[in-house]
């Protein structure tokens, strides 16, 4: 299959390209950009005039809920959501049931994902057996079966000694450890940012120092062990300040934020909106501003969807009892465009934060359209507005604070390895 993407504005941040230019795809790879290869004849021409052609999106965290939580979402539904959102590579956290703590499970998940012929799935292995926080998993084996990193997701570790040993062990094999800093005791039973909204609504609080206390320990141990650390879902201004200082001192940790945290704050909880029940919690306006700036500056390496589909019943509960999470795969692109527009961030840089930057964090060869690279492409109409409605979402999770909002930026075509897998409204099987 030879595809000619014609007349679109090509944005390929890694190669510094932002101009109207054609893309030629053959044998699953980018054959050429600009001028066609010799003797070119396309099987198919995709007209992309007034649209943006960019690398397929790379998402650092999307929960697919398989195995174990199929009532919330299935691999099929969430992979459909991914390609509808232009996401062609995604990392999935290990907090499934059972958790991704042994090679057989990881291989099974990868096999299931591959047969669906949708986005590329990169499992994150569990750092400890059963995510129980006590015994280390066979990380080297898990890497060999396809895990790109190791994480506890939102599960706590027994103590700092286990954290230290996990980092030591991972460093032995040069494996990256992804951690969301949160002290479990300081955050215990908390459901909302410790600020004026929690004080007013009487919601058990999660203080910023639950994040920063844990972060201090992680940064200290990263320096001691030389482990490669990626910090997930930083939510506070102070957390980013600590990261900035650590980087000045030579700690090479990378960092991501969730796209919803770039836009929302504690105020959005309103009258106990369970769709705003997320982990980490939406913090103050000041924190939100710091995340927006940090992402623009590059202090924050990448932004992810933190896609966590939750079934309806689990959100129809009082705020503190509702399940955490928001659906995000289909909103990652429009909400990133919204951030870029609001913060005057050049489009090329913004798209970099959801393509080449997360690919660099994951250390995978993706997120760019260099000749010879796998042809994973997203084509979208930046000026097409659409209303976020449950029926408009492919994901089985309809839980998002953006229900009813109108957003700009609609994916019109998603290509994976040279195959059109999604086109204006339908997945191609």
């Amino acid at each position, binding site marked *: 299959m030879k595809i000619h993407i014609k007349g679109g504005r090509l944005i390929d941040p890694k190669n510094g390209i932002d101009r109207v230019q054609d893309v030629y795809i053959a044998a699953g790879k980018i054959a050429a950009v600009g001028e066609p290869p010799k003797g070119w004849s396309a099987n198919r021409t995709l007209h992309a005039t007034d649209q943006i052609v960019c690398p397929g999106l790379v998402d650092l965290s999307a929960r697919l809920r398989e195995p174990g939580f199929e009532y919330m979402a299935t691999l099929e539904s969430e992979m459909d959501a991914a390609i509808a959102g232009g996401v062609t590579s995604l990392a999935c956290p290990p907090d499934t049931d059972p958790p991704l703590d042994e090679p057989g499970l990881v291989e099974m998940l990868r096999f299931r994902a591959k047969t669906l012929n949708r986005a590329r799935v990169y499992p994150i292995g569990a750092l400890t057996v059963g995510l129980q926080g006590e015994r280390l998993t066979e990380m080297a084996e898990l890497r060999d079966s396809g895990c790109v990193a190791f994480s506890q997701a939102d599960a706590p570790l027994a103590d700092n000694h286990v954290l230290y040993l996990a980092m030591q062990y991972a460093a032995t094999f040069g494996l990256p450890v992804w951690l969301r800093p949160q002290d479990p005791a300081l955050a215990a039973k908390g459901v909302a940012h*410790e*600020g*004026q909204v*929690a*004080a*007013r*609504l*009487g*919601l*058990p*609080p999660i*203080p910023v120092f639950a994040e920063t206390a844990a972060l201090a320990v992680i940064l200290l141990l990263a320096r001691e062990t030389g482990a490669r650390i990626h910090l997930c879902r930083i939510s506070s201004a102070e957390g980013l300040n600590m990261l900035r200082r650590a980087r000045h001192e030579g700690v090479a940790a990378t960092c991501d934020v969730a796209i919803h945290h770039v836009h929302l704050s504690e105020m959005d909880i309103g*009258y*106990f909106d*369970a769709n705003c029940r997320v982990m980490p919690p939406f913090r103050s306006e000041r924190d939100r501003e710091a995340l927006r700036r940090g992402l623009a500056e590059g202090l924050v390496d990448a932004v992810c969807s933190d896609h966590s589909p939750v079934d309806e*019943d689990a959100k*129809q*509960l*009082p*705020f*503190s*009892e509702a399940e955490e999470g928001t659906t995000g795969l289909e909103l990652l692109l429009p909400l990133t465009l919204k951030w870029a527009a609001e913060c005057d961030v050049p489009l090329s840089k913004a798209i970099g934060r959801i393509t080449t930057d997360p690919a660099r964090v994951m250390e995978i060869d993706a997120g760019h359209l260099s000749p010879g690279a796998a042809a994973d492409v997203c084509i979208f109409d930046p000026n097409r507005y659409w209303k976020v409605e449950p029926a408009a979402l492919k994901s089985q999770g309809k839980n998002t604070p953006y229900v009813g909002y109108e957003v700009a930026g609609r994916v019109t075509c998603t290509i994976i390895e040279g195959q059109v897998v999604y086109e204006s409204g339908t997945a191609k099987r």
Partner: protein
Amino acid sequence: MWLNASNPQLNKNGELHHLLTLEGLPAGILWQILDTAKSFVGVTQREVKKVPLLRGKAVFNLFFEPSTRTRTTFEIAAKRLSADVINLAINISSQTKGESVLDTVANLAAMQADMFIVRHAASGAPYLIAKHVAPEIHVINAGDGRHAHPTQGLLDMFTIRHFKQDFSSLRVAVVGDVLHSRVARSHIHALTTLGCPEIRVIGPKTLLPRHVETLGVHVYHDMRAGLKDVDVVMMLRLQNERMQSALLASAQEFYKYYGLTEDKLALAKPDAIVLHPGPMNRGVEIDSSVADGAKSVILPQVTFGIAIRMAVMSILAGN
């Protein structure tokens, strides 16, 4: 949406449809409830203690958390308004968490309920119910988590008004476990709305929510300084389980520093009054001599509680 989007307690005409919190309610509605309650105080003292305002209406007491006092006063109030009262104590632990909340409510609504009185351990639960019931059904929050206890707040305002007439020159202290108290939050919102110029909260740092000052109160950790020249002392109940945690050292130490004793009360204005939402822990947050003393208005509070609940129910039924 038939409810007012910016305030889910009000209908399109700005009238009270549900009573979920006192925050954000216009002063006019608070005064209306207090005035209406005044007219009901007479009823409760008559020989025949009934008025027919809610005749034929079904009021469901929906208690997801145990309570005797609040449930009983709601029941008495509804009966004095001639409503049919159905009491349901729902043992939440025996069910799959809160999932049943909306199911339970849907089932009861199908039995032609007109009003739900809801108590729940989770902040915000009555909002969830109010959002899902049919438009003709009214929801009254009888206490949700740490969030609000609006009828208690109102009856305390009624009590203050009864003894002090006017809020505009009062200095009020709220003392004790503000952190876990839905009553305290309702006090603060009501006092602010009714024009009280100075509200103080007094307690150890472990029992005051961080950022409590954003609610418009002055924070005191020294009770003697906090009680200086106040007109009203509103004591809060300290639950025994707080002693088991790291929040406090001992009941004795709490009593020494934050218990209301005669000598501490002497720092308040000579005509100060003392309120307590009950049930009291004598010798922990309040000394018996104060609880039973001349400045205590704790028993009138209970009486007024019935009138306030009658007022709220009759106003909701009328809107």
